[in-house]
């Protein structure tokens, strides 16, 4: 059996996915919400979310700048420069906001979650919890999973906001577009539920996947320096690919 399985090229990743899935089921099946648990979730939202703000704000601003620069240049050729705010807002809300923020989140918060849990394993802290009759799933895994689902949508909001500020800065202050037209076009073209809501829904999914993978790779890391280093890399790779694949699937369903 195992010989056959190991010869199949996809056996290892499928087995890993199965283990990660079981891990997730265990985490959710033991879900508990006490005051202490909520405090820990808030603490993790701070670590994953608030601590990621700088990278999100800077990246958001520059993405807004460059996106407006490119579309402004292209649209001007067709005499449609007024539509720049529409393109900016729709591409941000639907795609770029959730996807880019999720990729940044994986690099900033995901890696630190993986490294933290991997090192907790290596330094026997998870064992110590277990021996003190404190469930590490409840104490370590659950708050981080839920924090990811809360923090990433909030970060996407901030990302979108700063990107629009970047767009206004370029179009209005540098190119001299009419600010009222810029704003009015954006308002009339964005649908709250479909465009904005759809993007936020994506953000919840991405936050969940990013946190799940980060926690899983940390949890299953070999308890050595190499093991933790490898797990951190795997988190970034697996989250990036999953977010992009999932983005396509979700977009296909939403359109």
């Amino acid at each position: 059996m195992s010989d056959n399985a190991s010869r199949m090229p996809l056996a290892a990743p499928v087995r890993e996915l199965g283990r990660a899935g079981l891990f997730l089921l265990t985490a959710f099946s033991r879900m508990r919400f006490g005051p202490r648990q909520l405090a820990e979730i808030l603490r993790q939202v701070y670590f994953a979310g608030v601590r990621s703000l700088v990278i999100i704000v800077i990246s958001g601003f520059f993405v807004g700048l460059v996106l407006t620069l490119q579309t402004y240049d292209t649209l001007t050729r067709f005499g449609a420069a007024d539509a720049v705010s529409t393109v900016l807002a729709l591409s941000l809300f639907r795609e770029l906001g959730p996807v880019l923020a999720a990729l940044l989140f994986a690099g900033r918060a995901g890696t630190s979650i993986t490294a933290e849990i991997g090192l907790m394993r290596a330094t026997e802290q998870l064992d110590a919890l277990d021996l003190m009759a404190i469930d590490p799933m409840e104490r370590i895994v659950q708050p981080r999973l839920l924090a990811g689902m809360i923090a990433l949508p909030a970060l996407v909001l901030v990302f979108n906001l700063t990107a629009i500020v970047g767009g206004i800065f370029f179009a209005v202050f540098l190119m001299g577009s009419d600010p009222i037209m810029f704003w009015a076009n954006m308002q009339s073209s964005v649908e709250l539920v479909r465009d904005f809501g759809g993007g936020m829904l994506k953000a919840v999914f991405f936050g969940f996947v990013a946190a799940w993978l980060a926690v899983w790779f940390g949890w299953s890391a070999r308890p050595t320096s190499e093991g933790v280093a490898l797990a951190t890399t795997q988190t970034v790779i697996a989250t990036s690919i999953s977010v992009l694949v999932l983005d396509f699937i979700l977009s296909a369903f939403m359109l």
Partner: protein
Amino acid sequence: MTEFSAIAISLRGVTVRLGGRTVLEHLDLDIPAGRVTAVLGPSGAGKTTILRLVTGQLKPDSGEVWIGETRVDRLGSKALGRLRRDIGVLLQNGALFTDLTSFDNVALPLREHTRLPESLIRRLVLMKLEMVGLRGAADLYPAELSGGMKRRVATARAMALDPGIMIYDEPFAGLDPISLGVSLRLIRDINGALGTTSLVITHDVREIARLAEHACIIADRRLIAKGTPQQLTESDNPLVHQFMRGEPDGPVPFHYPADDLAEQLLGRGERA
């Protein structure tokens, strides 16, 4: 062997296989209540496996593990949780939570398992820290403590719920002579003051003579000797003799099994 009135922990015919390797085979082991017992043995002999059996982290492939009247290897996760509250474990490097201060580390089991008011928890934690001599380090984080101090804070944490059984996993490894002396005194004090059953898992033969009333040696997957440290030192069993005197060669060979040296050097070996 000295006669003891009660047995706190008992392993009956325990066999453990890990990753295809037999770590323990038909092991019988009794740990007397209220005393300091040392489990000795060379590295990799399965000493830590005994810790994991007693705490229920590992189930034996066959055999029984008893703590008092409770059969540990049959417990479900809830009952196991209750049992573990009565067992304090000091892991090798303390395993303190690095994001919590010494105070919060010691307070964690109290906050988690009791409904005591914070003012009482504060007093209990300070008392535990006082017992290990580190009340002054209550606000320090583990990164600010030396190796020996970390283990003392971890000892205070393990004692937080006043467990009936304390297990120390390699408590002397890598300690300087002063910290080592402190550790020895601490284990003796905890045992003396609280009447705790203490199980010290170690390979430090010399320290055991100063600490334990009862010792057993695990080697070659089984119990090879038990008795007072004095009796073990005088044993004529060659393996016990080698271990107690720290001789580099004997029944446990100095060399890891290998092909014939001459053949390998002359290039006739398989891997040449």
